[in-house]
C-alpha cells in the first residue's frame, strides 16, 4: 500500500479539515469552554455534530451500525482535532472504547454502540494507576461475587472520567500485580454504585479524574472479552489508542508549526521580517523535516494496524515516540519564536504547548515507547 492517502481518504481529509477548522477551532471550542469553566472540558454540541458527520462510529463495524473504517481514517480526523486543539471525546470514545467493544458481547455492543454512533454517549478508559503509563502492572481488583464481580481500587488520569456514560476499566481478576494474565476488562456504567470521581482540570484545560472503585458491583455481562484473558483486548485497545494519539500529536505539531511559520512572515524586528533571519529559518526548516517524518511514520503505523501486520506494535511505538519528540520541538520552537507574545494567554501558541504536554503523557511518553522499541527489537 502506498504511504499516502487514497482518493477516498483524501476526500475525507478535506471534509474533516474544513469541518473541524470551522466548528472545532480554538475560539469556538477550547477557549469557549475553558473560559466558562466547563466541567466537561468539551462541548456536547460538537460531539453531536461529529456524529452527524459520521465520525463517531468510524471504527465501529458496519454490522454494528458503524462505518467500518480503519485507523488511517480515524487518524485523519484526529490530526485535524490536534491541529485545532479541539477538545473532544473522539480518542477515548471512538478509538479506545470502540476498539475494546469490538471484543464485547452482542449484548454489550447493543447497549453502548448506538449511543456512541449518535453522539449521545461519551466513554472513558481507566487504565493507569500511577502518574506514568504502566499498563504492564494492574492492581485494581475485581473479585468474583455471585454472578458478577466486585471492583476495588483506584485509577488516575481518566480523561473525561466524570462526564463519561461508561468507563472501560482494566482490572485484575487473578494473579499478581505484574502478571500479564489475569486481567479482565469491564464496561462500567456511569451510575454504578461505589464509584467516585475526583475531577481535576489539567494543564490543557481538559478534565480528568482520579476514579475510585469501592466495592463496585458489576454484573457478569459487564465483562468485555474473556475473564482473565483481557490482556489481549487491553493490548488491542492500547495499540489503537497509541496510533490515534500519534495522529493527534501530528496535528498538534503541524498546528504549532503553521502558526509559527506564519508569525515569522509577519513580525518585524530590526527593520526586517524575523523570518528573514537565517537563525530562525534553519530552525523552522529542521522543524518542518521532523514533522514530515513524524507524519510519515504515523501513517505507516496506521496502515500496518489496519492490515493486521505483526509489525504494527513496533511501528505504533515508533510513531508515538517520534511524534512526542516532534510535537515537543514544535511547541517549544513555537513559543520561543513568538517571543514575549508567545507567553501570553491571548495568543494560541501557548495552548499548543499545554496540549502537547498532556497528550505526550497519554498512553506512554517518548521514553516509554523508545524503551518498548528496544524491547520489541530484542535489546
Amino acid at each position, binding site marked *: 500500500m*502506498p*504511504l*499516502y492517502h487514497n482518493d477516498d481518504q483524501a476526500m475525507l481529509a478535506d471534509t474533516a479539515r474544513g469541518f473541524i477548522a470551522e466548528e472545532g477551532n480554538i475560539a469556538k471550542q477550547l477557549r469557549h469552554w475553558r473560559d466558562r469553566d466547563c466541567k466537561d472540558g468539551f462541548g456536547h454540541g460538537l460531539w453531536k455534530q461529529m456524529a452527524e458527520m459520521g465520525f463517531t462510529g468510524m471504527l465501529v463495524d458496519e454490522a454494528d451500525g458503524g462505518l467500518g473504517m480503519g485507523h488511517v481514517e480515524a487518524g485523519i480526523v484526529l490530526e485535524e482535532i490536534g491541529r485545532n486543539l479541539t477538545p473532544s471525546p473522539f480518542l477515548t470514545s471512538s478509538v479506545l472504547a470502540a476498539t475494546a467493544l469490538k471484543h464485547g458481547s452482542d449484548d454489550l455492543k447493543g447497549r453502548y454502540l448506538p449511543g456512541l454512533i449518535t453522539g449521545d454517549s461519551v466513554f472513558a478508559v481507566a487504565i493507569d494507576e500511577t502518574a506514568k503509563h504502566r499498563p504492564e502492572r494492574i492492581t485494581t481488583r475485581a473479585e468474583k461475587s455471585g454472578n458478577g464481580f466486585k471492583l476495588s481500587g483506584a485509577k488516575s488520569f481518566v480523561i473525561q472520567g466524570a462526564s463519561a456514560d461508561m468507563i472501560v476499566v482494566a482490572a485484575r481478576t487473578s494473579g499478581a500485580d505484574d502478571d500479564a494474565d489475569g486481567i479482565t476488562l469491564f464496561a462500567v456504567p456511569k451510575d454504578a454504585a461505589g464509584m467516585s470521581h475526583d475531577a481535576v482540570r489539567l494543564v490543557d484545560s481538559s478534565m480528568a479524574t482520579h476514579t475510585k472503585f469501592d466495592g463496585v458491583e458489576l454484573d457478569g455481562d459487564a465483562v468485555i472479552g474473556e475473564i482473565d484473558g483481557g490482556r489481549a483486548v487491553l493490548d488491542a485497545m492500547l495499540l489503537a489508542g497509541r496510533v490515534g494519539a500519534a495522529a493527534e500529536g501530528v496535528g498538534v505539531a503541524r498546528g504549532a508549526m503553521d502558526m509559527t*511559520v506564519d508569525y*515569522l*512572515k509577519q513580525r518585524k524586528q530590526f527593520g*526586517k*521580517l524575523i*523570518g*528573514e533571519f*537565517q537563525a530562525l*529559518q*534553519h530552525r*523552522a*526548516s*529542521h522543524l*518542518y*523535516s*521532523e514533522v*514530515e*517524518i*513524524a507524519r*510519515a*511514520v504515523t*501513517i*505507516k503505523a496506521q496502515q500496518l494496524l489496519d492490515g493486521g501486520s505483526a509489525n504494527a506494535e*513496533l*511501528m505504533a511505538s*515508533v*510513531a508515538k*515516540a*517520534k511524534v512526542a*519528540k516532534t510535537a515537543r520541538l514544535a511547541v517549544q520552537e513555537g513559543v520561543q519564536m513568538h517571543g514575549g507574545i508567545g507567553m501570553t494567554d491571548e495568543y494560541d501558541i501557548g495552548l499548543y504547548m499545554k496540549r502537547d504536554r498532556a497528550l505526550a503523557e497519554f498512553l506512554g511518553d*517518548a*521514553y516509554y*515507547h*523508545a*524503551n518498548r*522499541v*528496544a524491547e520489541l*527489537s*530484542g*535489546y
Partner: protein
Amino acid sequence: MADLENFRAETRAWLEANCPPEMREPVRGEDDIYWGGRNATFKNDAQKAWLEACVAKGYTVPMWPKEYGGAGLSAPEAKVLREEMGRINARPPLSSFGIWMLGPALLHFGTEGQKQRFLNEIARGEIRWCQGYSEPGSGSDLVSLQTFGEDKGDHWVVNGQKIWTSYADQADWIFCLVRTDKENKYGGITFMLFDMASEGVTTKPIKLISGSSPFCETFFDNVSVPKSYGDDVPAYVGTINRGWDVAKYLLGHEREMISGADGGERAAAIGAAMKRHAAKTGDDIDPVLRAELAMFDVDALAYAAMGEKFLDEIKVGKAHPAQPNMMKYAGTELNKRRHELVMAVGGSRALEWESEATENGKPSKAWLRTKANSIEGGTSEVMLNVIAKRILDLPGA
C-alpha cells in the same frame, strides 16, 4: 500481483544461477566495489562473472529501457529485484557516477544519439565518469563557478580548476559545469562531457581525514572540447548556456541517493545489531547508551517510513519538488548519528586504525567518511535554506 510474484520467483532462480557465492558477502574493502572503466581490473573471476551476467540481463541499471542497456523494469519490479538481491546479500555488480548521476540526466535531457552511446557504455561499465561541479571558490554557491569555456566555433577551449572531484584520477570522462557566458549568471553555464585523457587535464589527489584519497583537484589548461562527438551526439547535455537546469536536476538525484531515502542501511534500526555485536565481544551496553540507541532507532525507523512515503509520492508526482532537500538533510544527519553510536558501542576496539580485528579500521574510517554526507551534494545548511525558501516560503530566503 500474481505477475510480481512470478517475477520474484524468476528473479530468485536467476540470482541463484548467476550470482556467485563470493558475491554474496558484505563489501569489506574498496576493491570489493567494481567501478568499471577503461582501466578497471577485476578482483577475481567471480566479480567478472557477476558483472557480465548482470550486463547481459540489464541488471546493472534495471529500470533503464532495454535499448540503453537496462532491463526496462517497472518500479515495483525493481523493488522486488532489490529485495531479492538484499535477501542473499548480493553485492552491487557495478557502482558508478554514470549510473547514479549522469544516466538520469541523460535519460531526461539527452538526445537519442547521446542515450544510445553513453547510456549503453555506462550500463556495461565501460566508461567511468566523474562529476566536475565544485571549484575552490564555488562550493555551496555553485553558480558562482569560474571555469571558462571560450567559444571557438566547433569547439571550446576550457580553462579553470575544479575541486573535490571524486575519483577524478581514475575516471575516463567527466561531466562538467563550464561557464560559457560571463554576463549571465544562471543562464551562462554549459553542461559538458569530455574525456579526462584530453590534453591539458591534470588531477591531483586530496587525502581525507579517513586516510583515503577518493577525490582530487582537477585542472584544465587550454583543454579543447569539441561541440559534437558525431551525428546527434553533442558534447553538452541540454542546451548551451542552459546547463544549470541539468545540474539542478542531477543534484536532485544526487541528494536523493545520498539521503538513503530508498531505505538502504542508513534508514535501518541498529539497536539489536549493536547488542549482538557487544554480546559477541563480551562488552556491555550501558543503560544510557541503550537509551540513545533506542531513541536513534525511533528516528531511523521513522525516517525509513518517510523514505517509503517519499518514493511512493514521487511515483505519482505528489512529492513537493524540494522534498529531496529535506530527505538529504534528515538522512545525512541521521547517518552521522548512526556512526557516532557504532563507535560508542565499539569502544576502544573501534579505535584500531590498522588491525585485522577491525579490517583495517573499518568502523573508524566509515565513521569519518559519514561526516562528508552533510557536505557532499550540498551542505545541510544549504538544504535548510532551500526548505525555508521553497517549501516554507519564508521571506528573503
